[in-house]
């Protein structure tokens, strides 16, 4: 079988050896639980608890603030301490509900769960939306909205994004190995919404064990298939993944549904399974703790709202003072100002590195080598776009297709002059998109 892929991309050291063989371990948190109201794209959730309220695990503490939004649930039982401004993993101070964990983990009585076969599509979507599920790969787009295209019968492919192309992260890898049936069950739920769709598990071929495990699991599933992808970053970028699997290409002004596709990542599909089959809201996820400054890298099943400090402690602490902490992968994750921040729905990893290669590699002059053009999955010219961005020349930036950038960072990675291409293009894109919306 030929491996599927796209044009461009890079091959950084994948760093997965540190944590890939560590089974998922459940982690019980210490200290207060912190729940940002905005862990997703769209309107922040509205708190429905107040200071002093006693809450149970699985109790809704904030409701969706609109259609494109998601509710937030408590992952522990305890007492609401109040609303506080707290750092989120991306380094912003955001409004959070703080709950004092009583350590009892008394759970809400979820009542009997209606079998999926008896539920209508609307009921299933309702369940997914109400469970607070968002794209857990990092984007955080409310899954209910994603699963509600105008014409569900025109969706041909549900793609499970099992690429996990970000270096170091092994959370999805462990999930695929250890929770294979939950993952397949999540896919079954999604397929029930789309009568004409085929479910594709798209896995990079550096995860052969996952491929064979999934192949076994879908052997009796006529509507599901497993496809192997070339191991390359950013194989898991939505547009590139859709192209690799279907040879259909969408640009920045289109949605995956325009190509008859919906993409969900591993953790999200498992959350869907938990919501629809088990009737449980989203209160936990798997997080990788890794990097060369971590004593015992591993993968942990973490209650949302757990402080990252707990994770570092669980991984044996640091071998030496790290120079940099990253929430998420090294290619698209956020550098953390402080580890004193909660795990949110989109936190896939915390990485600690001894060296900060960015500050060690100051920017120099572009030598026009063309490496950024070669690797750009969006097939644009990063070095030129960064020049337009530096000059604040929005018109040229847009004319040269700057809006097509997926901000994967391959250009910055490969640049021998160490230019911060993605940073320049990314910030210009934000300005250009904001201008576009104003018009």
């Amino acid at each position, binding site marked *: 079988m030929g491996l599927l892929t796209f044009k461009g991309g890079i091959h950084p050291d994948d760093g997965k050896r540190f944590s890939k063989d560590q089974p998922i371990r459940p982690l019980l948190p210490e200290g207060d639980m912190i729940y940002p109201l905005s862990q997703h794209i769209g309107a922040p959730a509205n708190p429905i608890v107040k200071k002093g309220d006693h809450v149970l695990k699985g109790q809704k503490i904030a409701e969706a603030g609109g259609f494109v939004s998601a509710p937030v649930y408590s992952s522990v039982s305890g007492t609401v301490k109040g609303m506080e401004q707290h750092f989120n993993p991306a380094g912003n101070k955001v409004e959070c509900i703080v709950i004092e964990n009583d350590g009892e983990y008394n759970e809400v009585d979820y009542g009997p769960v209606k079998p999926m076969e008896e539920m209508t599509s609307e009921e299933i979507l309702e369940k997914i939306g109400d469970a607070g599920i968002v794209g857990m790969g990092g984007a955080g787009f409310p899954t209910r909205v994603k699963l509600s295209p105008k014409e569900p019968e025109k969706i041909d492919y549900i793609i499970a994004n099992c690429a996990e192309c970000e270096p170091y992260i092994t959370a999805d890898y462990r999930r695929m190995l250890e929770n294979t049936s939950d993952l397949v069950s999540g896919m079954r739920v999604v397929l029930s919404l789309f009568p004409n769709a085929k479910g594709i598990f798209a896995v990079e071929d550096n995860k052969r064990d996952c491929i064979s495990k999934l192949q076994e699991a879908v052997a009796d599933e006529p509507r599901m298939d497993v496809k192997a992808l070339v191991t390359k970053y950013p194989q898991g970028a939505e*547009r590139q993944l859709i192209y690799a699997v279907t040879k259909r290409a969408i640009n*920045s002004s289109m949605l995956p549904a325009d190509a008859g596709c919906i993409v969900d990542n591993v953790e999200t599909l498992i959350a869907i399974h938990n919501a629809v089959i088990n009737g449980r809201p989203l209160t936990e996820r798997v997080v990788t703790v890794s990097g060369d400054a971590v004593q015992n890298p591993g993968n942990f099943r973490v209650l949302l709202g757990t402080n990252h400090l707990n994770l570092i402690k669980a991984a044996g602490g640091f071998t030496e003072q790290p120079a*940099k902490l*990253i929430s998420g992968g090294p290619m698209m994750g956020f*550098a953390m100002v402080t580890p004193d921040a909660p795990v949110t729905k989109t936190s896939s990893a915390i990485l600690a590195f001894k060296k900060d290669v960015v500050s060690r590699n100051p920017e120099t002059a572009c030598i026009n080598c063309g490496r950024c053009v070669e690797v750009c999955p969006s097939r644009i010219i990063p070095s030129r776009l960064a020049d337009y961005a530096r000059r604040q020349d929005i018109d040229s930036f847009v004319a040269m297709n700057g809006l097509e950038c997926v901000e994967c960072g391959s250009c910055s990675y490969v640049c021998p*002059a*160490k230019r*911060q291409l993605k940073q320049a293009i990314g910030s210009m894109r934000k300005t250009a998109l904001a201008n576009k919306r104003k018009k």
Partner: protein
Amino acid sequence: MNEKYRVSSSPHIRDKIKSSNIMLMVVIGLLPATVFGIWNFRHENAWILVVVTTAAAVLSEYIYEKLMHKPITINDFSAVVTGLLLALNLPPTLPWWMGVLGSVFAIVVVKQLFGGLGQNFMNPALAARCFLLICFTGQMTSFVYDGVTGPTPLADLKAGEAVNTMDMLIGNIRGTIGETSVIAIMIGAMFLILMGVIDLTIPASYLISFVVFIVIFGGHGLDPQYITAHLCGGGLMLGAWFMATDYVTSPITTKGRILYGVCMGLLTGLFRLFGGSAEGVSYAIIISNLLVPLIEKITLPKPFGKGGER
């Protein structure tokens, strides 16, 4: 553990390769041709011209940046590349001070006055060669081998005389210091290809279009002897592998690079066959350098999702 950590925009990892590594590899790639040239023209003491010209390029970059209170960038090896390339493009008998003048022109006028590394729109070494050619036409076109002054094989070829292509491959012929040995040049070029510094796009499109041109207009049809002599003669090989491939002065996209190679191939053919001089590589390359913005304009890539994904 409550201290603040260093933040920066993603990505947080970087490839190991740096601009200075690339420049250093180009210097290494030029060494076979340099060493051969110094040996080939040992009676003319070519080594002095090579050393002085290269040193002058580095020194003029240093002095200019010092005087202009700019950061000193001689550690990036780009001035070494320019100086060495210029030296390899000079006749071994050229007075050393002319080499120095060429280096100063290349670095100060062509490179620094336009904004330094990455901003020059012409290959500095070639621009300096053309500058010297105009200023000192006599010395720049006088070629010696084993103490005997005479025409280069390429001039012989143009005059319709027989040439020894084996000598042209090995390089024991008249010419500039670094251009004579095709074998030495190719060893260096292979090194650069293996190291991923250059690829075949530009040299191949350049050489193929040049061959097509001389087959059509050269009057010798497909005569392999004639084609080989043209390929091995003059500065074509040094130009195609080491100067046409200069990142700064070539287009950034593959399509653009192909078109750029074709421009150089056609211009070189035109100059060699119909021009006054036997040689035409330098002018072909710097004129094509000037065409780069136009080439890039008509070879804009299509983005992903708008036809560019294939």
